[in-house]
């Protein structure tokens, strides 16, 4: 079915069949724009950009069907560096603009790139509503726990006590846990990864791309200028081993050296970190990302308030739920089928009319 401008109304965003650009042959370079990348040397954003560019050719979506939308922030410069369609919007509003694109044009694959300030402070409302509606968006939240672009104020993910330009005596605020917030907002796909994760990061991107509906990924991203080392507990040599809890579907949740530790659900209903040698593998919780009840995914998100101790990475939840754009399209189809395509002359003359001669 096409609308009257000739756009396909058919499901899009993955598994596109025809492509003008000859998809099979696309490479990473095809997704690199001609604009000079302008992040600080050493910024975690570079690795994320590289990862996104590297997985794009695999997705089978032609370049012209891809749109990157962002707000304002260091991270939000992202679209300029992608050789696809793109909108660098205004602060916090990327999910709204992207919702317009994705629901107007279900044939497109729409990505949102946002920061912890852009997405969770000023843009928090649009984010939670996009997740609730399950708009077909791939949302990448670059969480550096700081405002980079405005040169170092605390953000809604900065830890309590943080001294920044705007909190010289330390922040008195409890941060959001973005995974918990997304789950509380009914998100259907929720994952977490780290800028330096050379395999896990691209894998999460692929998973998000494959999900129909809103896919939310929190990416821990190092801002080496204003918040260097915020994720050391997960990226230092030691922390990397001890603190990364990889969630894998259908697998008992184990971590630390040789999976010596694990997670168990108590009868009283909360999660504990346990020594596998003490309790035995059978006692461990088996991760089920497809469980519709978000309760367990949420419980896992509470294991760490911030990336300081053992912290789960991977897909917390992936479930199917009607996609916003699909619902819209099927109403259009049904109406056209029921009532026939719109007839303007008939519309204008509807209701009581009378003739004057």
């Amino acid at each position, binding site marked *: 079915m096409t609308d009257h401008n000739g756009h396909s109304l058919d499901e899009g965003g993955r598994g596109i069949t025809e492509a003008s650009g000859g998809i099979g042959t696309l490479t990473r370079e095809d997704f690199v724009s001609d604009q000079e990348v302008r992040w600080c040397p050493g910024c975690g954003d570079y690795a994320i950009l590289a990862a996104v560019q590297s997985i794009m050719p695999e997705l089978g979506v032609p370049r012209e069907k891809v749109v990157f939308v962002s707000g304002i922030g260091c991270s939000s410069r992202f679209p300029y560096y992608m050789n696809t369609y793109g909108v660098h919007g205004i602060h916090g509003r990327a999910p709204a603009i992207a919702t317009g694109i994705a629901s*107007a044009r279900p*044939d497109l694959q729409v990505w949102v790139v946002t920061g912890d300030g852009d997405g969770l402070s000023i843009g928090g409302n649009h984010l939670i509503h996009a997740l609730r509606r399950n708009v077909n968006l791939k949302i990448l939240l670059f969480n550096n726990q700081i405002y980079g672009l405005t040169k170092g104020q605390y953000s809604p993910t900065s830890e309590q006590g943080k001294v920044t330009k705007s909190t010289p005596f330390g922040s008195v605020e409890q941060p959001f846990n973005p995974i918990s917030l997304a789950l509380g907002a009914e998100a259907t796909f929720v994952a977490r990864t780290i800028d330096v994760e050379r395999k896990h990061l691209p894998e999460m991107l692929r998973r998000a791309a494959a999900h129909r509906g809103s896919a939310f990924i929190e990416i821990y991203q190092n801002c080496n200028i204003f918040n260097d080392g915020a994720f050391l507990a997960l990226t230092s040599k030691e922390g990397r081993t001890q603190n990364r809890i990889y969630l894998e579907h259908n697998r008992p949740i184990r971590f630390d050296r040789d999976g010596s530790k694990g997670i168990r659900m108590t009868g009283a209903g909360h999660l504990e970190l346990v020594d596998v040698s003490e309790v035995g593998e059978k006692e461990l919780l088996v991760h089920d990302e497809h469980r519709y009840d978000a309760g367990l995914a949420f419980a896992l998100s509470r294991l760490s308030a911030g990336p300081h101790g053992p912290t789960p990475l991977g897909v917390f939840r992936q479930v199917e739920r009607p996609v916003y754009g699909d619902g819209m399209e099927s109403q259009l189809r049904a109406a056209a089928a029921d009532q026939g395509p719109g007839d303007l002359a008939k*519309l204008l003359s509807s209701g009581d009319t009378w003739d004057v001669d």
Partner: protein
Amino acid sequence: MAAQAAPPAHIPAERKELPRVVVRFAGDSGDGMQLTGDRFTSVSAAFGNDLVTMPDFPAEIRAPAGSLAGVSAFQIHFSDHDILTPGDQPGVLVAMNPAALKANLGDVMRGGMLILNTDSFDKRNLEKAGFSSNPLDDGSLDSYQVYKIPMTSMTIDSVKGSGASKKEGERSKNMFALGVLSWMYSRPLEPTIEYLGKKFAKKESIAKANVAALKAGHAFGETAELSAFEVKPATLAPGRYRRITGNQALAYGLIAASVQSKLPLFLGSYPITPASDVLHELARYKNFGVRTLQAEDEIAAIGMALGAAFSGHLGITTTSGPGLDLKSETLGLAISLELPLIVIDIQRGGPSTGLPTKTEQSDLLHAMYGRHGEAPLPIVAPYSPASCFWAALESARIALKYMTPVILLSDGYIANGAEPWHIPSVDKLPDISVRFASQPNVGEDFWPYLRDGETLARPWAIPGTAGLEHRVGGLEKADGTGNISYDPDNHQLMTELRQAKIKVIEEDIDPLEFDGSDDARVLVVGWGGTYGTIGEVCRRLRARGRPVARAHLKHLNPMPKNTGEVLRRFEKVIVPELNMGQLSKLIRSEFLIETVSINCVRGLPFSSTELESELEELIP
């Protein structure tokens, strides 16, 4: 313009012919007065009268039954000739309870007719309305013709046998009132009977009760030999007509713009009085490929519409004042992105939440300047309910041709008011179809800001077009390539180009017309919903030989090219507005012409009698 005749005091055997009548229906919020008015309007329109209506909703929240705050009214002015206003003073007031009488009596012309539901004039209701004695018998209504009709009890009697419960039956008393009026002004019952059948298709007993009440009212009029009148059809241009409200005309105009531009319509909106009905209306036409999205707020609503515009849809957002405030920042982005977008503001009384159900014209300067930075955009204003259809099409035409957001400024009076509409022939509607960019425009490259030499519009390349991938954003960009640029000269150039793009539209809109006698030395200039009142008042003045002309601006930015020239022809320029002088300010700064402002911010249209006397004084 014939004077409205006070109905004769005695009951004539024959129908007396009247040139025009103003009727106001008033009752409790729950009494169904809007529906009654609507039906009366519908049959009057179908009968061929010219007409103008004005609903007057109560304050936002339903007030307790019987209270003054809960009174809801609907006024209709119908005639055998061309009229322009809903009328200042009703000649007939139908009041379903004491509060309705109290709230509206002041407006009724002396000698006018009061049709009162006596059943409701009990002690409690009188008290609630603040009457210390019963006006039915304290002599206070002596200067009116009072018809005392126990409508509630007669309705209850009449609906027996319909199968409706007593409470349901009682709720049909508005149809009884409609029946009475239908008798008095010889309006047919059939269309309403048919309408009721459809409306209550699923509740037959209620349909029956309503029909029974309607007939009973009519029969009562006949039996009681109430005054009976006739208002002949007006002579209108030949063609097919229907009645239309401003918001409906707006919705139709937007759909027409979608069809004529061959672009799917995308509405992002957040409910707000008095704009919500456009959303409600458009949400019904999914078979036209219309997408409506109720956003989480006004910022999201415009953001979504802008996203849709980026992807090749006719992006629209509708709101009222408070919502326009919230859209400011995204409007600036749309100006920077140079994408077509229609932002509709249906003005209401401000500032802040103000008078949400009342009309005002006080968002003009906000529409002009309500964004940081130099951020000009075109502004179009409908001037009557039916003209909203034109305004929607015109806004779309400008937005698409010049790649710019456009603000359409309607107001609560136009939005809810209704008038007969000469239905346009679809094949005479303008073709506003667009050509998306499909090819690189500089060698093998695509430059998103390479402008058309004439319109200064940039090309519109939409996602899905291979080879034209590009990025746009709110940072200043180099003209041509569209790449981010902090170059001082480029910023100067872009600022000038954005301004020039609005200016060139001057060449592409109708010139300002004025009408008036050749000797006219005074020009009355208006915009928006005051069109009818100013027109009627000027007619009256000219009929009395006063040297006055009038002009009405439909484009506020840019104004028509000849505006200065027209204004300068006159010795005096008077600008009546439902604000504190906003158009006046624009005219003064643009043309350095002295203006005289007539301002009114009472939440209501101008009273034509008052405007007449104010103008009278100002004409030398």
